[in-house]
């Protein structure tokens, strides 16, 4: 996904002169084709995120569209003030390409695990928050972003995630995609949790439980128009995210439910990281299992909800 997104930025740059690449210090050889073809529009600025955001804002204030590429935790936590004041307040089209959304960097530990990025970005007025499920969807999002106003946060997942989005989904930034209509259960997903929900759905089907899936690649602005009818139909709603259960997709969906879009006898469950910092290493999948984010654990949680002891 990371590579495809970067290549899409290069494609945009070929078509639009205002597109700039701004990196801090990530990835040897990243976008070398961009650097060769447009050396004046390719910036690698060093490990100085607060400056990088201000500088990108200064360029955007003068008609440019910078795509800022660095690691999600440093991009969101370290320079939150710059993102809020320099970028969001004036609603400038700075694009934040945030590597390692969620638990991607499991072996590297909490410094690199972006478990709060959606919450942080979602709380900023004018910010759009985009967390695609696979490389295809990332490419669609990047290509659509040139004509989209204001700042955008792109949450980048690990490479090689299975492709589950389809070109026939009618992709549009800001629109949720209903993969399956809700049955007894509705999964609401963002990012790569769509894959997990699809697996869980298959497993549940074997056990006679019909689950729908609504994928929210754009967590903000939230597509209430698509989500509300799904939430009203499904007796049991599960929000699934690779993020702290506080402040992310689950919170966003909870807000819609609390404001009235719910099944009369419905339940709602947030599945995510239970407000803790990861305390072990290993692979992303190990942490999924630890936090009950793998398909098996999700199936168990659904069954427990449907058939309480």
């Amino acid at each position: 996904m990371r590579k495809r997104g970067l290549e899409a930025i290069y494609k945009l740059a070929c078509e639009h002169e205002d597109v700039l690449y701004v990196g801090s210090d990530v990835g040897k050889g990243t976008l070398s084709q961009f650097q060769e073809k447009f050396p004046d529009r390719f910036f690698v600025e060093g490990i100085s995120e607060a400056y990088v955001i201000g500088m990108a804002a200064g360029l955007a204030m003068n008609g440019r569209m910078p795509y800022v590429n660095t690691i999600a935790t440093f991009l969101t936590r370290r320079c939150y003030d710059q993102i809020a004041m320099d970028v969001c307040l004036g609603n400038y089209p700075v694009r934040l390409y945030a590597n390692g959304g969620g638990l991607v960097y499991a072996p590297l530990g909490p410094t690199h695990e972006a478990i709060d990025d959606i919450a942080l970005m979602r709380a900023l007025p004018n910010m759009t928050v985009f967390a695609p499920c696979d490389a295809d969807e990332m490419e669609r999002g990047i290509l659509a972003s040139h004509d989209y106003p204001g700042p955008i946060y792109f949450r980048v997942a690990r490479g090689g995630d299975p492709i589950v989005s389809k070109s026939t989904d009618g992709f549009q930034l800001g629109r949720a995609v209903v993969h399956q209509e809700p049955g007894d259960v509705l999964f609401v997903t963002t990012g790569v949790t769509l894959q997990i929900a699809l697996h869980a759905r298959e497993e549940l089907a074997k056990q006679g439980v019909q689950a729908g899936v609504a994928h929210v690649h754009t967590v903000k602005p939230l597509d209430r128009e698509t989500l509300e009818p799904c939430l009203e139909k499904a007796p049991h709603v599960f929000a699934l995210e690779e993020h702290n259960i506080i402040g992310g997709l689950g919170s966003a969906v909870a807000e819609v439910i609390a404001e009235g879009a719910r099944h009369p006898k419905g339940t709602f469950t947030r599945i995510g990281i239970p407000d803790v910092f990861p305390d072990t290493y290993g692979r992303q999948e190990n942490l999924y299992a630890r936090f009950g984010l793998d398909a098996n654990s999700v199936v168990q949680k659904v069954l427990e909800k449907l058939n309480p002891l």
Partner: protein
Amino acid sequence: MNSFEKRCAEIRREVMEMVIHGRRGHIAPAFSIVEILSVLYDHIMNVRPHEPRWPDRDRFILSKGHGCMSLYAILANKGYFSKELYKTFCKPEGILGGHPEEKVPGIEAPTGSLGHGLPISVGFALAARLDGRSYRSFVILGDGECNEGSVWEAALAASKHGLDNLVVLVDYNKYMSFGKTRDVCDMEPFADKWRAFGFHTCEVDMVKEPESLIQLLKGLPFTAGKPSAVICHTIKGRGVPFMEGNLDWHHKSKIKDEEIREIMDHLERDHA
């Protein structure tokens, strides 16, 4: 009193007009930059007040946004907006807030959170280069503001890019909010720091020889291929003896009639 001094005294009096209506503000931090702003707007920068977004205008950011009352006064005097707006300073119906925002004609970037101005100014200078335009990017930093790491991140970048269209003016008034700069977080050797970061750096005594800044800035860029910095030695609260170097006046609210009268007396005396 020469015409430059008269101009500066007038700007300070107009700052007080805002205070009369808003009854609050960072008066002393505003007073320390009046001479620098007068030099920039009256003698150095290419701007069109009636066309604030003119693409070739020199860009300016007051990175120490809390000094904005002097900037508002200069902008109004240049014709960016009506002096009638002074009456709405910090009021619900106004656009002149306690820190400047882009809704005010002539304000290029919102400041108030310190350490933001120089990074944005570097972006402006790079944008000029990308667009093949000859405008320059000026920024005033506070001395206390230079405690912020982002200032030095941006300084590294300015030097790396050889931005000789970037001009940093440091308002070195030697005071912060809590105490003297040298006690809170000493910046000395200040000029040498800027030099070490690759800036051609000069120093000007803005109290004894404020107009020498005009001649100095007419020689921009000081060195081709290098960003420029000027350490401006100023006095916080300049123009009002009881305010000069008095920490109580860094920021003040509920300012009384009597205090305003005393300040105006000093400024009128200077103006006479």
